[in-house]
């Protein structure tokens, strides 16, 4: 296996399947009386978070702790970064302290790739700007396989703010590798210029795509990354691209609704849909821990 996890595009089908299979085995650990394995005893994992995050950081922390690794949380606020230290110097400091793996989230696309050139340990990309978020895509694929029993031939619609979404990019790359068909649904203003080079279909019409989808993944509109206005009003966006109960009813009977979180209820997803048993948001969070355990084991477990 590779030394770093920077992009889902680097994973072959076999490697991606191995990650999912390993996660399926490790999911049992959460049900045991002792929720811990000794595998990474004596290894150090640094969570280096330059952007706010609750879910991903705690998920990585819990995953590393369940494998008995030592975890250091390092957030930009209240650290030497706020005094002006560069990413490289921070990385070299962590290196000198003997970090075996660095989990990095950064607002700049490509930050994880840069870091991988500076440190000896493994680098795990936990989200870099609008580029990629590989563990999220892996846990999404895991959840789909868990719920629907397969990935090959699955029809997946990813709906919303594709332009600013690292989750969408990682998912398109991974799901295509695993044999699923992805359709992106968004207003033209929220699609990247280069979207025609992606290995997926594109549509502007949610109502057309929904009845043909086994999975619909709703994305949050990332207002914090927007410096222009991309749609006339929240109300109009919600009318055209929000998933409400009526639209859910038009989907195939066993189709599922996914969301990487955090959800904005009433915007991209209606409360009744978010609370429906067909919505997998909390499962995705639970699966995220097993999946990240699998990735940490596969990157750090061998020689």
């Amino acid at each position, binding site marked *: 296996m590779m030394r770093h996890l920077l992009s889902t595009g680097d994973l072959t089908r076999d490697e991606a399947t191995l990650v999912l299979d390993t996660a399926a085995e*490790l999911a049992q650990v959460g049900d045991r009386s002792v929720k811990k*394995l000794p595998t990474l005893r004596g290894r150090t994992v640094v969570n280096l978070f330059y952007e706010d995050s609750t879910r991903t950081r705690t998920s990585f922390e819990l995953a590393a702790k369940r494998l008995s690794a030592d975890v250091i949380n390092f957030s930009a606020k209240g650290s030497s970064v706020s005094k002006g230290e560069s990413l490289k110097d921070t990385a070299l400091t962590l290196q000198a302290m003997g970090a075996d793996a660095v989990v990095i989230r950064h607002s700049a696309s490509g930050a994880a790739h840069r870091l991988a050139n500076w440190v000896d340990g493994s680098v795990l990309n936990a989200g870099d700007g609008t580029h990629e978020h590989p563990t999220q895509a892996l846990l999404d694929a895991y959840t789909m396989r868990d719920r629907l029993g397969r990935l090959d031939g699955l029809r997946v619609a990813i709906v919303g703010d594709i332009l600013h979404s690292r989750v969408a990019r990682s998912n398109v790359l991974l799901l295509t590798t695993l044999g699923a068909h992805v359709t992106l649904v968004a207003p033209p203003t929220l699609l990247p210029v280069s979207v025609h080079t992606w290995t997926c279909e594109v549509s502007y019409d949610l109502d057309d795509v929904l009845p043909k989808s086994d999975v619909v993944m709703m994305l949050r509109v990332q207002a914090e990354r927007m410096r222009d206005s991309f749609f006339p009003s929240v109300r109009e966006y919600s009318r055209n691209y929000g998933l409400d109960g009526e639209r859910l009813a038009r989907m195939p009977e066993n189709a599922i609704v996914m969301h990487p979180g955090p959800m904005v209820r009433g915007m991209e997803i209606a409360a009744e849909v978010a609370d429906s048993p067909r919505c997998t948001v909390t499962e995705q969070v639970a699966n995220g821990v097993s999946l990240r355990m699998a990735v940490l084991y596969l990157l750090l477990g061998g020689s």
Partner: protein
Amino acid sequence: MRVQKPTKSDAGGDPEPSPEVPEGTRAVLDGNEINRALTRIAHEVLERTKGGQDVTLLGIPSRGVPLARRLAQRIERVEDLAVPVGSLDITMYRDDLRSAPVRALGRTEIPNGGLDDRVIVLVDDVLFSGRTVRAALDALGDLGRPRAVQLAVLVDRGHRELPIRADYVGKNLPTSLRENVTVRLDETDGHDAVLLGPSRPTAATARDGGLRPGPSRSRPGTTEGNA
């Protein structure tokens, strides 16, 4: 995992198709001898555990798992008692993880009812250094608190590196460290045999090697040196 494929011998002891014996190795146990050894172990388990009421069998992947199932079938035939069977993967508890490329995990399946206050019989194919069993004992400690833990192996080839011994042994097989013991089972390899041959030169490092899930699962000779 629940589907049990009846072995050829279970179907009534019809003659084995001549087991393929690779060049340079010889068969030390054939299918019938393996079956007789398992039948004897089944009786011994019942005797030692006074009827086997509290017994749970846990096979260690990969070849320990079908052996545990076969033992359970024999116990059921002898005593009309359904013994819970499961599997216990010890990969995450190994002491040599860092000396080889990362290993794919096997299945762990704990039977309903758990392990607390049960008499656990660990089942593996080859007992060698004892390190696998040490790892299995550690894993058990995290899964529950059995009343007792016993060990059943098809072959004990000696060369222990830890103070561990088996309670039930199919065959004691004195070996040299330069030799290699391979157990083949119908369920995993298509036929039953225990083979003794010279150790392959690259085997020590390439043994469980690799991540590619396909080939690494079905490779023959996985037991060599890891029990």
